[in-house]
């Protein structure tokens, strides 16, 4: 674990908040998996178990005015950013109270009030968008940061290459956060990249970068502070590789033929929640009742979200084509 000295801001309250956010995500994902088997949630469902430290370490460092672009594995990002658990879950139920009116589902959580730009299910598709969001801010002279999350599998896409070059060439305030969980569906990094040290890719575009242990929430937060600060001060892009691991199957359809249980088990010991909790305990920064309270609060929030989603209503079929174009359209 990172030495305590690296993190001046690591007060007890803050530590507990970090832990709680990770637990929130974990419990939410567990519930989603359960609801999927009950067929309350349908379609493709991609869970974030094991990667919580990335969203929790990076997103709270951003300002409300900053922008976030995420992928189809974005539940954790949405929750940490402040998208209510209620509307996020209602979205997965397909209810009109959902954060995308029930039209997007798990892969397409959007929330204007928190500048959460989704929920992109085209691998690499979010990168050009983030470049454009940052270009708008840059042209208006705003010091907004756009954080773009994507998996290491996206690195092979042409859109990754074009986007990093544009961001560097035009000096745009984009924080590229690569969630390197070693697999793209069933494709291990070594089978998709001739250069497996992803962080080095950034240098090819003259973009400053850093790789961090994505299982260490404190380290991620510290790196995110440096990164966000660099982007905001310089107005230039920054590349942060978070080395992490996906504990669950890629989606609910994955037989995991491509990796063996032993590998997954080995990673379970390194997973961010167990690890941070253990560290807090070792440093006497958490009392058993803190944890109990925290878990009770999270369980209550999850229960409330389920109740909200269950209470939710179906958008009238008459509105099917509504918003294909603006109602205000000429």
């Amino acid at each position: 674990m990172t030495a305590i000295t690296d993190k001046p801001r690591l007060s007890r309250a803050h530590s507990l908040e970090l832990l709680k956010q990770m637990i929130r995500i974990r419990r939410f994902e567990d519930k989603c998996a359960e609801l999927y088997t009950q067929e309350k949630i349908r379609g493709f469902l991609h869970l974030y178990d094991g990667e919580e430290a990335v969203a929790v370490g990076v997103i709270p460092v951003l300002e409300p005015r900053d922008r976030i672009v995420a992928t189809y594995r974005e539940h954790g990002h949405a929750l940490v950013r402040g998208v209510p658990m209620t509307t996020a879950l209602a979205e997965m139920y397909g209810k009109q109270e959902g954060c995308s009116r029930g039209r997007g589902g798990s892969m397409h959580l959007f929330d204007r009030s928190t500048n959460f730009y989704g929920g992109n299910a085209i691998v690499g598709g979010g990168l050009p968008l983030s470049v454009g969001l940052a270009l708008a801010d840059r042209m208006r002279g705003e010091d907004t940061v756009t954080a773009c999350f994507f998996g290491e599998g996206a690195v092979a896409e042409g859109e990754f290459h074009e986007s990093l070059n544009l961001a560097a060439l035009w000096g745009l305030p984009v924080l590229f956060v690569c969630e390197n969980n070693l697999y793209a569906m069933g494709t291990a990094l070594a089978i998709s990249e001739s250069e497996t040290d992803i962080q080095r890719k950034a240098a090819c575009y003259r973009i400053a970068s850093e790789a961090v242990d994505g299982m260490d929430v404190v380290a991620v937060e510290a790196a995110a502070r440096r990164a966000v600060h660099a982007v905001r001060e310089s107005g230039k892009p920054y590349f942060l590789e978070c080395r992490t691991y996906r504990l669950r199957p890629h989606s609910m359809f994955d037989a995991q033929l491509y990796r063996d249980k032993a590998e997954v088990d080995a990673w379970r010991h390194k997973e961010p929640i167990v690890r941070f909790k253990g560290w807090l305990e070792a440093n006497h920064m958490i009392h058993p009742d803190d944890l109990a309270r925290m878990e009770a609060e999270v369980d209550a929030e999850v229960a409330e979200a389920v109740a909200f989603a269950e209470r939710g209503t179906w958008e009238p079929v008459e509105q099917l084509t509504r918003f294909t174009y603006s109602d205000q359209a000429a």
Partner: protein
Amino acid sequence: MTAPSKTVELSYRDAMREAIRDAMRRDNTVFLMGEDVGRYGGCYAVSKGLLAEFGPERIRDTPLSESGFTGAGIGAAMAGMRPIVELMTVNFSLLALDQILNTAATVRHMSGNQFSAPLVIRMATGAGRQLAAQHSHSLEGWYAHIPGIKVLAPGTLEDARGMLWTALQDPDPVLIFENVMLYNMTGKLAADAGAVDIDKAAVRRAGRDVSLITYGGSLWKTLDAATALAAENIDAEVIDLRSLRPLDDATIMRSVAKTRRAVIIDEGWRSGSLSAEICTRIIEQAFWELDAPVGRVCSEEVPIPYSRHLEMAAIPQVPRIIAAAKAALGRA
């Protein structure tokens, strides 16, 4: 679809897999390339098990680089191989469209017949699994606009099993669209089922009153509609186009000349869908035989939504097909 003597029970997915296995065994220039076709077993499990039999060179997992590996498939075909390129979903195929339209479809004509790209590109298409607006579209009819390629839509187990080999023998690029709702469809297939033609439409149900023209995922809904119509003494003929490019005009016109009424069922977005081309050809070739305007049942013009009830309402369903058939017969 006559029941043959010795049959096996299998799914559309199995039939596709058998077709790939068979082709790989018969011709060692054939190989399969795409995202997660190997170790993962294929995003829709079509290629599951093939890696063990043929190895990673011929069941080639690719990085997420649709344009790159599709172009590589085109190049390999130009150099004498017979690649089967799998694109996970038609929405992602847009990333490879430059290679498909600007190279694969043009190279034979543009080079004065010196080079050609005889590869097969397979992809999943269609809605119904609540995958929302970036995974659920039906662009096969749109692809059928492109000269230089052929476009197939196997709707039956026989075609899932038999079209691939014929497509691989074809000297030009062939795209095969597999509707996601068909993969789990099971049924009986002749144990010795093999290659089938890829240029004729098939009359899946003979009828006198109205021609219901469709393909792929909508075929079974249309057959169900025909059954329901029969209960109301409406004898519908159901045509499975099978090949979307070229279209088998002869079979279509023969049917329309008989029934004098036609309804096209197409999961593509209504405006500019293949249904429009078929309707237009009927007008051009059989206008004077028609007793009613041609009807069409298509998808609503909207990005496919996640919510089940909206998704179902967005694409063709049996009741709409029945209603359209009756309207064509003035029995609305």
